[in-house]
């Protein structure tokens, strides 16, 4: 199976303290470390496992500059055979639709049976996968937590829906899926693995190569634009109790009794 996985370079959520920069235009980025979006990483692992089982090739693509190349390389160190980078000055400031337009154009340049994205990324929009599917007229399923290959014409997939239940669907190939965390256990990528792919060439696709016109991407054609970041003023919030552990426990027990918390 030919699989294309779209990956995004994001600030590492675990290792960063996200705070708003003084002018509100952006978050403070000086001390941030970046890595591949966690959901995208699960998607790459899933693709690699499918190819290990059934044969084929995994291609990883990211929209960005040389920084994004670093994470494409990391996913190749994990086991993706091919990396691609979509870079062009006109891509800057694209909104979700713009990014999806670029990725869909890249997908058209190959003949992929399956296109994967992570279910969501740092902005929580969970949109690019579904948009790519619509642009390419392919069937789509989101928050997929299980993929079973069947006959090469369709997949049996599971989606993680509310209440922790799993919605089973059959979906025709080619299709687009967005992948939920927990679908597998991504393999570890060590420094050694990354060094092994350090000199592998990653082709760069610009707007011309992709056939993407400026009117569809970039800041100017973005329909959805962020104005600023801010931290909301905290509401009244909780009534904070104080005292020693003993005193706190006493106060709490009294409240719990009153509210019927102790039977």
């Amino acid at each position: 199976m030919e699989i294309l996985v779209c990956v995004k370079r994001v600030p590492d959520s675990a290792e960063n303290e996200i705070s708003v920069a003084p002018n509100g235009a952006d978050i403070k980025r000086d001390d941030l470390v970046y890595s591949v979006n966690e959901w995208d990483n699960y998607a790459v692992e899933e693709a690699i496992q499918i190819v290990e089982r059934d044969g084929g090739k995994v291609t990883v693509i990211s929209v960005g500059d040389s920084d994004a190349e670093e994470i494409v390389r990391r996913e190749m160190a994990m086991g993706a055979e091919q990396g691609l980078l979509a870079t062009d000055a006109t891509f800057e400031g694209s909104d979700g639709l713009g990014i999806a337009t670029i990725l869909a154009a890249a997908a058209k340049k190959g003949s992929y049976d399956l296109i994967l994205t992570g279910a969501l990324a740092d902005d929580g929009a969970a949109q690019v996968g579904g948009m790519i599917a619509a642009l390419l007229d392919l069937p789509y399923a989101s928050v997929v937590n299980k993929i079973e290959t069947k006959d090469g014409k369709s997949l049996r997939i599971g989606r993680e829906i509310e209440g922790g239940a799993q919605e089973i669907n059959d979906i025709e190939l080619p299709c687009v899926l967005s992948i939920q965390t927990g679908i597998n256990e991504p393999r570890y990528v060590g420094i050694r693995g990354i060094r092994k792919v350090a000199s592998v060439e990653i082709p760069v696709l610009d707007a011309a190569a992709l056939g993407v016109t400026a009117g569809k991407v970039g800041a100017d054609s973005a329909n959805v634009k962020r104005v600023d970041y801010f931290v909301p003023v905290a509401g009244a919030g909780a009534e904070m109790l104080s005292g020693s552990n003993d005193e706190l426990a006493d106060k709490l027990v009294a409240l719990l009794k009153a509210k019927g918390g102790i039977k």
Partner: protein
Amino acid sequence: MNAKLFVFVSHRNGKADDSAFELASAAKTMLPGSAATAIVCGSGVDAVATEAAQLFAEVWKFDQSALAYPNAELIRPLLLEVVPAGSVLLLAHDTFGFDLGPGLSVKLGAAYVPDVVGFDGLDGTALKVVRQEFAGQVSAHVNANVANGAVVTVRSGAFKPSEVSPGGQVIDKSDEAAGLTAKRTFIEVIEAEAGDIDITREDVLVSVGRGIGDKENIGLVEELTDAMGAAMSCSRPIVDAKWLDKGRQVGTSGKTVKPKVYLALGISGSFQHLGGLKGNPFLVAVNKNPKAPIFQVATVGIIADLLEFLPVLTEKVQKAK
């Protein structure tokens, strides 16, 4: 703005979802004075349509057996057929919304405005919304160009459920939904394992989160729970680490609970967790971190080291019985 406003009403077992009530509020906040039309798709949905008519002035009902289970791949082409260009659609930001929304916006040529937690009004063709990024660590003001319409998804719990105001009209458009096909077929839903307990029926829940530190420390929580005669629940990281069964998870990807009393121990208060907590319980939060978001929504807050505080609390509870 003259665009038509639609709200997609989700339902289960013949009743409208809580999200429908919240979306009704959201619609009024977003475009005050506008009348939203509800869209109800399904099989045998008369009751739902009637219920929706108590929230919305107009309800379009699409009753077809093919729609028995909400399959976004069937519903998207249906909506493209029936919804006029330039409309604004409101969906819940849930797993169905993830499926339906992005592709729908592309096909409609409309802006996609996902996971909105607040509206700041309409400025010409710019819809001003509030979103969150980085797992809720920061908020953002976002402007969406809705000249060609919009698909807006709304976060669960961001808007209070609307009051009912009966008198809406149900229009049966089922014929327009005939003959729908898709390249994705629903097979079945596999429910989460029942496990040994149904926390959704419990009045008093003692919920444990990542702040408990280690698997063995859960024993301390068990002791407190037993002393209180309550039931134990938890947040997602506890289940991911396999320290407790999935059946005990409270949250959007877990169970929805409506207890009277809820103790959140070592839980930071992510919206995914709080999304499973309904009904405005007496919420006690105990956490080592004074900046934990849970303190913003809790009734009572205690800053303490769980491993030191819990045994003391358990003892006092036992004495108080």
